[in-house]
């Protein structure tokens, strides 16, 4: 395979909290333009993996992004290099307005002129947000907060977007919308690493997938392939 278009490579990643290894010697990679999903049950180590990639949790192993080792690069600099994360539970600032939530994500951007264009892009994608731009983040519904969380990641103009369970707590129709939006964002050139418990939806949009169980990758393959895999069907698709 062509190694040149690997955007993220994770080698022997281990994340430990005290004596407990939440992620145990995990290796995988994501190529430019892909949607890769990491599925697994509660406590499998999915969020820990994303937090390590974003530089907000200590780890051992090696994480390279665009060919550069990310060790010792502070989290805010990683964002400046074009990698944004939509955190688990959305992480909306309830005391900031919708617009302020979006604006804060432009902290690292120097291209002030194109920022205005990107607000329009976010509002075109999520028209509800435009109507609520002066409302406090805390007053939004769960679905709107998820839109805002994705919108925020778009405002940092990322080449790579990490999403941690974007479907969590949403009604089925909203889940479909959010997954549709993710494929939309991917089509405009953003590489996606998607963490999900909703294996069915995640596998159906993913080019490739990894299955994480108690900190280890137990299966990997193309999204459609895993959708038909007996073991995956039993464990995650009920």
């Amino acid at each position, binding site marked *: 395979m062509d190694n040149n278009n690997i955007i993220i490579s994770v080698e022997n990643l281990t994340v430990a909290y005290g004596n407990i290894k939440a992620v145990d010697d995990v290796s995988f990679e994501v190529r430019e333009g892909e949607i890769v999903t990491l599925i697994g049950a509660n406590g499998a180590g999915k969020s820990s993996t994303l937090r390590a990639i974003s530089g907000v949790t200590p780890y051992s192993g090696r994480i390279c992004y665009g060919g550069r080792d990310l060790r010792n690069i*502070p989290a*805010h600099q990683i*964002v400046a290099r074009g990698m*944004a994360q939509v955190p688990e539970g959305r*992480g909306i600032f309830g005391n*900031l307005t919708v617009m*302020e939530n979006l604006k*804060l994500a432009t902290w690292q951007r120097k291209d002030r002129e194109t920022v205005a264009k990107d607000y329009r892009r976010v509002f075109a994608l999520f028209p509800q947000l435009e109507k609520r731009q002066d409302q406090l983040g805390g007053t939004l519904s769960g679905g709107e907060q998820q839109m805002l969380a994705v919108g925020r990641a778009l405002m940092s103009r990322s080449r790579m977007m990490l999403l941690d369970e974007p479907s969590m707590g949403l009604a089925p129709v909203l889940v479909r919308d959010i997954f549709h939006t993710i494929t939309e964002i991917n089509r405009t050139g953003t590489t996606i690493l998607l963490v999900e418990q909703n294996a069915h939806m995640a596998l159906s949009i993913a080019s490739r997938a990894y299955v994480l169980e108690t900190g280890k990758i137990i299966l990997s393959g193309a999204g459609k392939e895993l959708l038909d895999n007996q073991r995956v069907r039993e464990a995650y698709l009920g």
Partner: protein
Amino acid sequence: MTYVFQQLLNALQVGSIYALIALGYTMVYGILTMINFAHGDLFMVGAFFCFFAAIFLNLPFVPVLVISMVGVALLGVVIERCAYKPLRQAPRVSAIITALGVGLFLENFTLALNPYPKQVPQLLANTTWIFHGVSISSIALFIVILSLLLMLMLDLIVRRTMVGMAMRAISWDKAVVPLLGVPVDLIISLTFAIGTSLGGAAGVMYGLAYPVIDPYMGIMVGWKAFISAVVGGIGNIRGAMIGGYILGALEILVVAVMPSTYRDFVAFVLLLILLIFRPYGILGKPHPQKV
């Protein structure tokens, strides 16, 4: 009636100083959920910077104010980086003990340099106007106006600028902020710098109003300002401003109707009553617990 107005003006002057110092407590609490118990002593250091700049550098008021604010801000940032930052993940009590230790250090270091109380020279001409029987000192008026201006500036920074937005975001959920590309440590340092510089400004104003300063002057004033911050709702910026004026008014009221020795006692009683009936203060809200 003139008596009431006279006392009101006094209350505004004292309240302004409490409010400025209270802002430092509340800003640091908002961003780190930690009480910087050295803050009252930083206010004292501000008064001493004022004294040194006026005596040894022979400077007029504006440069003296700037030197004190910048000097105390730098000291605040150094304290945060060296003493508090290493303890961010440590239990709360470690940070509190460290802050108390830093405060004692500042007091005793200043004491070692200045064993005797010092007299701040008169930096501004003091004129007294009599207006319908109320005597208005130009210094008191100046203190109130300058304090309000500083508070207005702070309010604008917090509400309108990206740095202010980042400060508010950190107070809501510190873990998410770096994921948006915002350098959290820088914002924390800026918060310390701004909060402590207001304490430094309060030190200068205190020196204008009550020119005799000593290394222990920050203890009681610091407590009063801390109570102001709690009364207003710790972590809430406008609350700290309101709390400062409430405490100023309360003190003047107590002295007007009771023996003046009751002044500090009543302030602490207020704190206790408040902690029982409204622990979140006037503008504070119980923060939603994140899971």
